[in-house]
């Protein structure tokens, strides 16, 4: 029983950490229509940022400043934001798919830096020895994992509430205006490139937070964690859940992460020995098919975006006109 609960805790912790990245993507793609082809870069910037700032001192390289946890986490989030600024400044004024290409490129570039710049990143070995906050204070590993899950839940809730507030605010309407009709937004004196840049950097910082929590959970980060497939997984989660809907983003994360873990488990248990080598390929085909088939068959996802159309329905407009004409 304890085994099942602790596995469930593990599963949920990872799923909810990923859900934060999916929420960040929802801000970029769902609400602003920005294509991020390198989520893993911003995730990785957050992860490496926090381990470098908050980790133990390193004998053979830079970093390991041992800063207090919250400051290290903020540092990780900011480094993801800085990376997004570098890419965003070059691309948000241009054709929309340039952002896709540049973000795809930044992920590859970051992975090669992580692999090679041993002085900064520890190279292929990665960075280990990170001390998780309060771990020695709580002691019992099972209680600690439950507490960690609770903190991750709090973070998901905070990001969710932040985004819900944001998209309901005038700025949220501005985001959708830019997404739906850039020319109209410009004609109202708004600057779509600036709006896009803000949304892109904010979304990337949320992905950085997700990466920071991920590195904290494993107390370790290496280039293995920056494999491009993470980007595809996070897209699949958003597309399946329904882009433009924050609840859908979280639901999609659970569904897709569940089928990813489940398919891996099934392949390991059922597939014959000689097929085990190809289990990864089969899972990649699964993720690719989920993306393509969802786009073809159910492009709005499980929980589609709810646009508040109340102001524009016929009865509502009539009611307004009548009310004005009544006296």
């Amino acid at each position: 029983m304890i085994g099942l609960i602790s596995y469930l805790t593990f599963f949920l912790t990872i799923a909810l950490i990923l859900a934060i990245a999916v929420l960040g993507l929802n801000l970029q793609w769902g609400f602003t229509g920005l294509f991020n082809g390198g989520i893993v870069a911003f995730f990785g910037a957050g992860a490496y940022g926090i381990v470098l700032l908050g980790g133990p001192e390193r004998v053979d390289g830079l970093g390991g400043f041992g800063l207090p946890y919250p400051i290290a986490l903020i540092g990780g989030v900011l480094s993801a934001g800085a990376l997004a600024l570098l890419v965003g400044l070059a691309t948000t004024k241009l054709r929309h798919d340039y952002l896709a290409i540049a973000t795809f490129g930044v992920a590859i570039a970051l992975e090669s830096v992580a692999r090679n710049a041993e002085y900064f990143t520890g190279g292929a070995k990665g960075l280990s020895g990170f001390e998780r906050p309060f771990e020695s204070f709580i002691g019992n590993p099972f209680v600690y994992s439950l507490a960690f899950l609770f903190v991750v839940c709090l973070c998901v809730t905070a990001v969710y509430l932040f985004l819900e507030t944001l998209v309901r605010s005038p700025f949220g309407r501005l985001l959708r205006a830019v997404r739906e009709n850039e020319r109209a937004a410009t004609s109202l004196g708004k600057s779509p490139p600036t709006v896009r840049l803000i949304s892109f950097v904010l979304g990337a910082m949320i992905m950085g937070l997700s990466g920071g929590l991920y590195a904290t959970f494993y107390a370790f980060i290496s280039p293995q964690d920056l494999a491009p497939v993470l980007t595809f997984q996070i897209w699949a989660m958003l597309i399946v859940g329904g882009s433009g809907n924050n609840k859908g983003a979280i639901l999609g994360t659970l569904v897709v992460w569940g089928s990813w873990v489940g398919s891996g488990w099934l392949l390991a248990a059922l597939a014959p020995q000689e097929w085990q080598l190809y289990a990864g390929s089969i899972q990649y085909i699964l993720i690719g098919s989920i993306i393509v088939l969802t786009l073809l068959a159910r492009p709005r996802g499980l929980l589609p975006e709810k646009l508040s159309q109340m102001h524009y329905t016929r009865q509502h407009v009539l009611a307004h006109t009548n009310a004005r004409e009544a006296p």
Partner: protein
Amino acid sequence: MLQSLFDGILVGSILSLGAIGLTLIMHILRFANFSHAELISLGAYVTLTLDATISGMSDLLTEKLPQLSVSMSLILAMLLALLITGIFAALIDVLIFKRLRDNAGPLTMVFASFGIGLIVRNVIGLIYGLKSTHYNNDIAFAMMISADPLLLVKADQLFILALTLVVMVALHLLLTRTSIGYALLAVSENPELAQVNGINLAAMVRLAWMLGGALAAIAGVCYALNNQLSPVMGRDLVLSLFAAAIVGGIGSVYGAALGGLIVGLASSLALLYIPTGYKPAMPFVIILLALYIRPNGLFGEER
């Protein structure tokens, strides 16, 4: 230095072939097709299978051309593979991209192209295995034209350069001397205006896919001759292809050809100064520089 220049031109000419199809589709259909590079892998692997089939038919065909590790059967296989890859590219468009184009925005097609790339790459891995292979075992001992330590040149590499040159000239003649080429150029300049002049847009889109697929297949065979076949060869090239298309200017066939050479040379020369491990990051640096300095590329128009 000399070696880097030679390698750069060699890789660059292969990139040029791959980037031409990419830039055409990116301009006509207005989306960045991340699965384009998988056509390179597909062309290379289809050639591998056909080569094995054809060389089984007659011993005459398996004999290597003088000095080269290329046989007649490989050339025949490549020609067939061009057709197959071209048809495959057009088929993917009809089955997936066209439906998304009709119902959703161009960025949805970008999403789908990632998914398609993921599927094609891993299906190739499932069929052919994850290990890299060669067209034949002689490639490892290929004939050296120049064995000078300053400049190592294999006969196969000169074959690749000659082949890409012939393809480029043929493409140039197609685009400037035939009405179908004019129509394609017109569509890539301005799809709406081309339609006003009675050009069948759907047919031209199909042609662009087939042409892009065929060129990618040639690029794949050349790349496999120069390096090896591996299911991830397309993935390794995709960013360089985009860099070539952006440097040349989206939509410009000649720009993509020149952009390929520039990216190939720049990546090869940069390795004189930076460690090899950073090689995958080079195309990104080129893309970022191009976007900051000259976002419309060398031959691209303002948009």
